[in-house]
């Protein structure tokens, strides 16, 4: 029987005894499999079984289905399914609303990711020491992370309300004029990006803080001996040391931004005039509205998936090239 290391002698003896009692079954393959599944190693299959089954049914099969569905036309209940070939893809690349949604998603990503990746790093450097005030700042910055997008949307929508918004009023009394934050084809995308950053800035900052705290202290001491000031220490010691965290945040943030949905749904729902309609927002409305077309929605999902994967793989290879 399988024994882990050499330290399980008593249990080994026990299994040996059982074997002798069942000498007849010795050659029986089913018996041996069952025996193995009860052993220390074999039981691993029971332990991973639930997660593997769930991940296959609810992650891997849906991914395969989405690639399959992309070539079909189907309604929401799959009663009417017909082969579409490449028609859905042709439709997507001539669908102005889809192309616009890709543009909006890219603009949003270009606004959000640099601030999340670089801004959070700078702020984290300022609050990485474990002083009382720094801990308080960290606790506060993390606060929006635990709030639901629903609440955050309700809150910002009213604070930036064009008539009775508290912030709109404050800006107006400073003489900046009445700003229509949620109904301006140029401005609103910035507002949405701001709210999204407001919501998750805390995670990026805290992850950086953890990384900065793990930097070897002697590196700073050496830099200090060389007469480096705090800023130089950050550039030459901290920044290079936390590079893995930088890549990690960059990749997760990019993938997250390319899938932006919650905040847009709660604030603008794509408006005004589709200037904040992200790809996922558009996919959602095509898949789950009255005129549901699951096939076409899948096609757009597949295109988005390819974009996200391409970005991730390119970055991953850059990371490996740089770290090597």
């Amino acid at each position, binding site marked *: 029987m399988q024994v882990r290391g050499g330290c399980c002698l008593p249990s080994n003896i026990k299994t040996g005894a059982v074997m002798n009692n069942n000498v007849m079954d010795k050659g029986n393959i089913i018996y041996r499999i069952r025996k193995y599944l009860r052993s220390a190693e074999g039981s691993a299959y029971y332990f991973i079984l639930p997660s593997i089954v769930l991940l296959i049914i609810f992650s891997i099969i849906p991914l395969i289905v989405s690639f399959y569905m992309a070539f079909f036309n189907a309604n929401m209940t799959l009663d009417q399914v017909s082969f579409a070939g490449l028609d859905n893809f042709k439709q997507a690349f001539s669908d102005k609303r889809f192309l616009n949604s890709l543009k909006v998603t890219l603009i949003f990503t270009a606004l959000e990711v640099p601030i999340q990746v670089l801004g959070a790093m700078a702020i984290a450097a300022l609050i990485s020491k474990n002083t009382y005030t720094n801990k308080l700042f960290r606790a506060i910055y993390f606060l929006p992370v635990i709030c639901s997008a*629903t*609440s955050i949307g309700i809150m910002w929508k009213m604070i930036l309300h064009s008539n009775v918004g508290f912030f709109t009023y404050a800006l107006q009394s400073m003489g900046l004029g009445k700003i229509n934050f949620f109904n301006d084809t140029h401005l609103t995308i910035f507002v949405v990006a701001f709210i999204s950053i407001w919501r998750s800035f805390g995670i990026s900052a805290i992850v950086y803080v953890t990384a900065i705290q793990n930097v070897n202290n002697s590196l700073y001491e050496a830099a200090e001996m060389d007469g480096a000031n705090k800023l130089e220490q950050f550039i030459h010691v901290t920044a290079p040391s936390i590079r893995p965290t930088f890549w990690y945040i960059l990749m997760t943030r990019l993938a997250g931004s390319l899938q932006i949905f919650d905040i847009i749904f709660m604030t603008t729902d794509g408006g005004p005039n589709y200037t904040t309609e992200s790809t996922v927002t558009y996919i959602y409305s095509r898949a789950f509205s009255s005129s549901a077309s699951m096939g076409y929605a899948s096609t757009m999902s597949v295109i988005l998936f390819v974009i996200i994967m391409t970005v991730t793989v390119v970055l991953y290879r850059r990371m490996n090239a740089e770290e090597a």
Partner: protein
Amino acid sequence: METVKKNTAKGIAFIILLILALLVVVPLTWLALSAFKEEKEILAYPPTFFTHSFTLKNFANTAKRIKIIRYIMNSVIYAVGTTALAVVVNAMAGYAYARKKFLGKNVFFILTLATMMIPFQVIMVPLFLVVYKLGMYNTYWGLIIPRVAVAGSIFMMRAAFAGLPVELEDAARIDGLSEWGIFWRIMLPQVKSSVICLIILSINGSWNDLLWPMIVASDTKMRTLANGLALFVGQNSIQYGASFAGALISIAPMFILYIFGQKYFVEGMASSGLKG
């Protein structure tokens, strides 16, 4: 001269940090205060920050206008159900990957990790179809089961179990404990802090989850607080006071959880991957 420069830099840094902190605290405080304002005051111009017309009417209205009690109940069922199953399923898998050698271990582990790369938003359409075909549309099972197994949590639990000494298991095995007993009674209690991280993350994630309940729990009776409130706000005849009260009800339990478990929130999110 040097110290003056240093102090100025420190002062500027502190002011930036303070402004950012106010940017978080002021809106949230405003929301909390506004939940207790009369509708008149909310819509008054100029807007007020502090509450002048203290009222609890908004909370009563949430019960009248949207089935908030039902929504809260659904959110609790979703959060508790998902979390209970997630702890067992993900800890089991993490334990096996950390402590056991078996045929195909790497294949299964890579398969698990690969699912981390599948964005939820990309598979939401077919996932809906799978749940629909399994007859779980608009049921608690449909809401809960697809969200149980999470590669990030398995990864986190694997790291936690990997750090434990071998002697623990061997001693239990000599005592004649079953493999399940070793896992459940000996090993799992050893990684308590990781389990708490997982519990907090899972509760927070499902309580705040918007997209999945919107897709799979569209029936008014099945809506969770996050999606019920979102759909209420989407209506034309919106009552602001009630929506603020609803938002406060949505934030409050997480805020309390955060006050007591800040360490676990931070640790969990840092070690199992970023969300959103």
